Structures are given as structure tokens and as C-alpha cells.
């Protein structure tokens, strides 16, 4: 009967999806990126632009030169840390859409800490390291505290965290702008910027010789990934958190306090988001500014995390892919006369294609892993 046939097919495909290996999934991700680029090229050509130049510029902008690679890695660093912040919360079934706000607040805490402590600490490398450490700690604390707010509101006032975190993004942006503009702007300066950090407060630009990217920053991102992955898989806290995400009633049954878990999850997620802000202020800016002008790492991080199936380890390749697309897209914007909407559209196409792994895993399996056969 046709009903049975359809059910059997569904059974088989589900089975296949479940058993796709990591290598297969990576192969599919690459295949879908290429397919999306091919499709994007068609769209670009149809719009009357040079598709070959478009795609080659995208690739060149992402990894065509040493400085372009540095830019890709810089964006990736931010997206990886922010992506981990999102993944932590999503894994626990808490939707922290406020990573952007926590990142803004974290970076602000770093900036204030560095600017206020600098006069009291020695100059030079020692002072620089101390200021970076204190600034980073301040960012982690501030990001955690700022995220704890919506956590508390969800746990004890039943306020939907999606809404509160989005609202708190605006509040963070507005308040930080006010404070930077009215309190920290050097008198006479036109732009709403703080003073520059002392020039010894910077991460060493090893390998890439870039003023806004340091391998140390990428190292911090990777270390964050590892720490979070270990916490999630090997600690009681992580088990409670992940169990709450899978099945809240089972978590409650096992003695996990659902309200407390919401608060601790948000705090943990916000701490990582705050770290993103520290890296942004120290590694990229070297001062602080109007948050409305900042890149929207906190929002892109949601897509990064989802692409990684909210797995902290998966955030690394997902973050690099997004970083590369971002860098390539920006490069096209500078060099080609292509509307930015078209660039965004093609980038979106890539994300869409990669983010439907189920679809591609199914299709890949059916055609013998999309490569054996055409």
C-alpha cells in the first residue's frame, strides 16, 4: 500500500540521517557551499554582473592574501566565541537572543576597566597583560550579570527570554552610547569614542602582522570552545544543563531546579558573550565607541550556532565559514560595483544551503554521498 511505502521510505531516510558520520556531514557542507555559490553565480549573472569575477572576488576576499586571511580569522574569532555563547544557551533550551547586548556590555566593561586602571598600573608589557586580564575578567562578569537579568526574569516572573533579551540589546546599546558619549568622550573630540587604550594594551600580532587580528585572540576562541565543550560533556553542571534542554521534565525529576538552571545557563552564556566584547575592545578597536556602529556578531552568532547544531565543537568550522563569507562579502563591497543586497543574498544562499544539513544528508545518501554520482 502506498501509505506503507511512504512510511518505509521515511523510516529509512531517518535512519540514514541519524547515521551520517562527521566526515559525510563535512563533505555535504562543502558540497552545499559549492552548490550555493553556483546558484548564486547564476543569480549574479542574471542580474547583469560578471559572475566569475563575483565568485573569484568572494574567494579572494576570504583567503586570497595574508591580510584577507587575517580579516577572515578576525571575524571568525568573534563569531566562534559569540557562537559558543549562543550554543550554551540553546543547548539548555534557553533562547538567548541577547548575545549582542551582552557583548556590548562586556566590551564596555573592558574599556572602562582598562581606561580607569591604566594610571595605577605600570606601563609596558606587565601593565598591558594585567590590564588585558582585568579587562577580560570585567567583561566576563559584566556579560554574565547582564544575561542573568533575563534569566531571573524568565525563572521568577515568567517573562519570555526571547523578548527580554532582544529588548535588553537595545537598552545595552542606548545606555552604553550615552555613557561613552557623555562621560568618556575626551573633551573636544567630535566622535562619540573613548580615549584610545594605552598602546601597550594589545595582543601580540604574531604571524599575520595585522593591527586588528592576533593569533592569541583566535587561541582564546579555541580555548573557550574546549573549555565549554568539556563543561558541557564532563561536568555535572553541563549534564544538568543539557538534560534540561533535551527534556525539562526529566531534568526536574532528576533533581535539577529548572528555575536555577535557567539563571545559571543565561549567566554562563552571557559570560562567554562578555568575553566576545573583551576581544572586540582589545583586539579589534583599541578604544570603545557607539555600539550602534559595531558589527552584529551577536546575531550572526545565532546562525553560526544553529549551523553547528548548537555543538560547541561544531561552532569552529561554522564560525570560520561565516567569517570567510563575511570577509569575502565585504571585499566585494569595496571592490566591485555590485549592490550589497546581492552580496548579502548570495551569502544568505550559502547559509541556507549549509543550514539544511538534513536535506542534504538525505539527498547525499540517496545519490551515493553526492560525489560518487553526479
Amino acid at each position, binding site marked *: *500500500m502506498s*501509505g506503507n511505502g511512504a512510511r518505509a521510505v521515511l523510516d529509512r531516510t531517518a535512519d540514514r540521517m541519524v547515521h551520517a558520520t562527521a566526515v559525510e556531514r563535512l563533505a555535504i557542507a562543502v558540497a552545499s557551499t559549492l552548490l550555493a555559490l553556483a546558484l548564486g553565480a547564476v543569480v549574479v549573472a542574471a542580474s547583469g554582473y560578471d559572475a566569475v569575477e563575483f565568485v573569484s572576488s568572494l574567494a579572494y576576499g576570504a583567503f586570497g592574501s595574508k591580510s584577507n586571511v587575517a580579516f577572515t580569522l578576525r571575524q571568525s574569532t568573534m563569531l566562534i566565541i559569540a557562537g559558543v555563547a549562543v550554543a550554551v544557551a540553546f543547548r539548555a533550551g534557553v533562547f538567548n537572543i541577547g548575545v549582542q547586548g551582552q557583548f556590548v556590555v562586556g566590551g564596555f566593561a573592558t574599556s572602562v576597566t582598562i581606561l580607569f586602571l591604566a594610571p595605577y598600573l605600570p606601563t609596558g608589557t606587565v601593565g598591558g597583560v594585567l590590564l588585558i586580564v582585568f579587562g577580560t575578567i570585567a567583561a566576563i562578569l559584566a556579560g554574565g550579570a547582564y544575561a542573568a537579568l533575563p534569566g531571573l526574569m524568565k525563572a521568577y516572573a515568567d517573562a519570555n527570554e526571547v523578548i527580554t533579551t532582544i529588548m535588553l540589546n537595545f537598552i545595552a546599546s542606548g545606555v552604553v552610547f550615552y555613557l561613552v558619549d557623555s562621560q568618556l568622550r575626551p573633551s573636544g573630540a567630535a566622535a562619540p569614542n573613548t580615549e584610545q587604550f594605552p598602546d601597550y594594551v594589545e595582543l601580540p600580532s604574531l604571524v599575520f602582522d595585522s593591527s586588528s587580528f592576533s593569533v592569541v585572540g583566535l587561541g582564546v576562541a579555541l580555548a573557550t570552545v574546549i573549555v565549554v565543550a568539556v563543561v558541557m560533556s564532563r561536568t555535572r553542571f553541563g*549534564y544538568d544543563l543539557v*538534560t534540561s534542554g533535551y527534556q525539562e521534565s526529566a531534568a526536574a*525529576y*532528576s533533581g535539577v531546579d529548572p528555575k536555577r538552571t535557567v539563571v545559571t545557563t543565561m549567566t554562563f552564556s552571557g559570560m562567554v558573550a562578555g568575553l566576545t566584547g573583551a576581544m572586540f575592545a582589545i583586539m579589534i578597536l583599541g578604544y570603545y565607541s557607539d555600539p550602534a556602529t559595531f558589527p552584529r556578531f551577536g546575531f550572526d552568532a545565532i546562525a553560526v550556532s544553529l549551523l553547528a547544531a548548537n555543538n560547541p565543537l561544531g561552532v569552529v568550522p561554522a564560525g570560520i565559514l561565516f567569517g570567510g563569507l563575511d570577509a569575502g562579502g565585504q571585499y566585494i563591497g569595496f571592490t566591485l560595483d555590485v549592490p550589497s543586497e546581492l552580496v548579502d543574498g548570495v551569502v544568505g544562499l550559502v547559509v541556507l544551503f549549509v543550514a539544511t544539513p538534513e536535506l542534504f544528508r538525505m539527498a547525499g545518501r540517496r545519490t551515493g554521498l553526492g560525489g560518487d554520482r553526479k
Partner: protein
Amino acid sequence: MSDTQVPAVDLDGITKRFGDVVANDGVDLSLEKGSVHALVGENGAGKTTLMSVLYGLYEPDGGTISVDGEPREFDSPRDAIDAGVGMIHQHFQLVDTMTVVQNVVLGHEPAERGLVDEGSARRDIEEICATYGFDVDEHLDTRVEDLGVGVQQRVEIVKSLYRGADVLVLDEPTAVLTPQEVEGLFDVMTELTERGRSLIFITHKLDEALAVADHITVLRDGESVGTVEASETTREELARMMVGRDVLFDYPARETSPGAVTLGVDDLRVEDDRGLEQVGGVDLEVREGEVFGVAGVDGNGQAELVEALTGLRSAESGTVTFDGRDVTDASRRERIDAGIAYVPEDRQEEGLVQDYDLVRNALLGNQTVAPYVENGFVDWGAVRTHAEDIVEQYDVQPPNAEAEAGSLSGGNQQKFVVGRELEHQPDLVVASHPTRGVDIGSIEFIHERLFEMRDAGMAVLLVSSKLDEVQKLSDRIAVMYEGEFVGMVDPDEVTEEELGLLMAGRSPDSGGASAEASADAPPESVVDDGESTSDGGVES
């Protein structure tokens, strides 16, 4: 109803299995045209499964369905609807934010050149309402969420009639209604049968079946116990049929006598999520080496009582003591650590994380227990060993600790949960419906484990709606009805009829006495525990 030789619906030998569990075993049911046929039985007896087979939701493993004398095979509810079979689910299938008209025509919109012809739908609905005397047409443009539950139910019925249903299956329709609304529903049912529709009425309330049905079929453990004429049966006969004793093998008599009080509950009151009082002043004591059974039809406060005892729900008032300590406000975690094990009613939602393998499930509830967790870090090796031990000792099939919990059959899931909960030498085991949906072999196994716990001196609180189970396992039985203990009985002396009637909120003696009266004054005739007044086992 003399010329209705061909039954409206004829179910012949319906068998439905879920894994090892036989939910329906060769059930026959013949629905006479223009009549109400009640299907009664305990929760889990297979009523809803049987009706889901009829409605095309499940494919039967055996047996045939005939509608109007014609054999039919339903692959989906759509087929059943086309054959004139409609179902009113316990949880209404209405879209709250849409109006009554929109809900009624949903999926069957009369279309004219691709546009919904609401005018014709309106006329049809008004005609149906006029025919049956429904008030639904007064609310045609009201959104469903603004209607009372009783009206929503009538909207569901109109929806089925609109789709041309001649046979309506009502799945526990009274469960959500107030007594007044129940009266209204019965009027509607009478109206329907007078106009030639045939109804199957699922309930576990005997009075309702007797009041409104022409025939009554009793299901027990997936089998039909028999079909009787409503006019020729009695509540007692139905109670006996419904709860009749299974032949379970004989358990060894207890060797120890109960010791000190492990769990003490004093005037406990608990509310549900909606703020309605579900437990209204319960007193009980469970002693070391004793099984205390709580019998009752589901939904009489047992779930809330268990949650309050295990720390999943806070009590409104009253006290709970455990090993002499007041734990009324203790968290779930504190109670686990103090030695209260809990076999939950819902292993799918609570007892196991379906997507976890058994290793990760073995940690569930043990997050503070060494050696599995030390200094906040999980020792997965130790947890794995633990999981493998449970799998081996509790005969979990397949014997693979890396199997996902969701892939196991109900019986094996339950054995794993029981194993995990009992492995830590708790002082108290709270077991809620520990054998629901579990195959016979596993039932025996789980019962034996509970006896071992008792003999090892642990206190066991057993909540079950299976009377044979409660009677077999318990040293004392409290019957819970509408949030209170209405009777305290000795399992060796009480009869199933008496238990069944107590569970229905009635004193066995007074038969027709109202439920409220018997809840306030426990029937002394069955209080035969000797020490029930002194140990606080009965609310008096």
C-alpha cells in the same frame, strides 16, 4: 430500534500490539444503529487504542472493521471520516483563534471557484443546529477560545456531523465538563440517537455509562470482558467486570513486620498547575518493611500527591516527614539525597531522557552521587559500569548500555528505571503506576523487586489504578477519591467490588449515596485495618 439488524459498526477480533505490549487482544464490539454503546474500563485497559483503530489512527494487527455491514480498512482518519465515522477527542481538535464557522469547515471548506463559500457553510451549520437543537449557531462568529468548554465540545460534534458522520466516538467526553455540562451532553447524545446517529461513549465512570448507554462493553487489560445491556446490569456487576482479578502468581508471604515510620504525611494539601486543589488534606504513614498502596481512578489527586512527596511540587499546607525529619519544603535534590527513590508514572517524560543512551540515563538523578560525580566532574567510566550492572541485573533487553532509551520497549525502559532507582538502597520507594504499559513478564519482575525492597526493610508507597496490583502488593490500601482518602482497607479482606465502588467515590453499603458524602465520612464497614485510627492512616 427493531429493524436494525446490521450494526452501524462491527469490530471483530481487533488485536493491536505495541512491541511486547498487547493493547487490544481480540476485542469484539457491535454498535447497534441509533444507540449509545458505552466502552468502559480502567485507564490503560485499551479503550482509546481500540477507538484509534476504528478511527484509522492505528492499523490493527488482526481483526476486521465493518461499517454498515461492509468490511473497511482505514489508513487514516480521513478514510474513517469518509466512511461516516467521527471522533470527538478528549482534547478538542479546534483552532482557538479561529471562529466556530472556520473551525467547522476547516479541511472541508465548501469552495466556489476556489473561494470558500462561507454562506453555504453557515446554512449547513445552522441546519445541523436546528435539527439537533444545538445552540452552536448563536456563536458562529465567536472565536473558539472565547467559548466555554461545553460549547466547544458541541462545536466538535457539529464539526463531525458537518463532515457527514453517522457514527460518533466520544473519548471520555465528560472528563472536562462540570456536572451541569455533563447533563447537557447527555441531552445532546439522546438527541443524536433519536435522529438515527450511533454513538460510542468512552468512560471509566460507571454511573455515566448506566445513565446514558444502551449497551456497555467492559475492557480490561486489552481484552473484552463482556457486553451487557445497560438496563439489565448493576453498578456492582460492572465494577466486578472492570477490576476483576488477574491471575498473578502467588507471592511469598511477608516475613518481617513493619518497623518505624519512614514517611509521615499530615493534612497535606496540594494544588495543580491551575491552582485547583487536587489533594485535600491527606494523612498517611508508611513504615519500614511495608507496602502502602494508594488505589484510585486516575486524576483523583494521586499524581499531585506523589509529586508533593517526591519534591516536584510544593505543598500548600500540611507536613511531610521522612525518617523523622520535616522535609515539607525540601527540594527534589535534597529528597533524592536523603534516600527517597521515585519510580515515576511517566517514564517517557520523566524517568528517562529518550535521546540519551542508557549510560547517560544512568546518571539521571545520581548527579550528586559518588563515584559517578566527584568535585563536579562526571566519571563516565563509573556511570557506564553502573548502567551495565543495571542492564544485567534487571534483565534489560537488548543488553546494550549504549542503546538509546527511546528505542527500548516500555517494559524494558521501566525495568531500567526501576533498577536505577532501587540500586541505591533508598529508605523509601515511591512507585507510581510502576507496571503501566508493561508486559506481563516485566510486571512479575518489577513486583518481585518491590517485594525484595519491602523485605529488606524499606518503605514502599505504591500508587496504582490496577486493583489486582494494589491488592497483591500492599499491606494496607488507601482509596483516593477527589483528593482525599475515602477508605482504608485491608487488602486480604476487601473485595474487588468494594474497592471498585470506593474508587468510584461510593460507599459499598449505601450504593446510591453521593460521592461527596462518602468522601467526608469514610465508610466504616470496610475500615478493617485495626490500627488505622491510631497510626493516622485514615483521615477521620
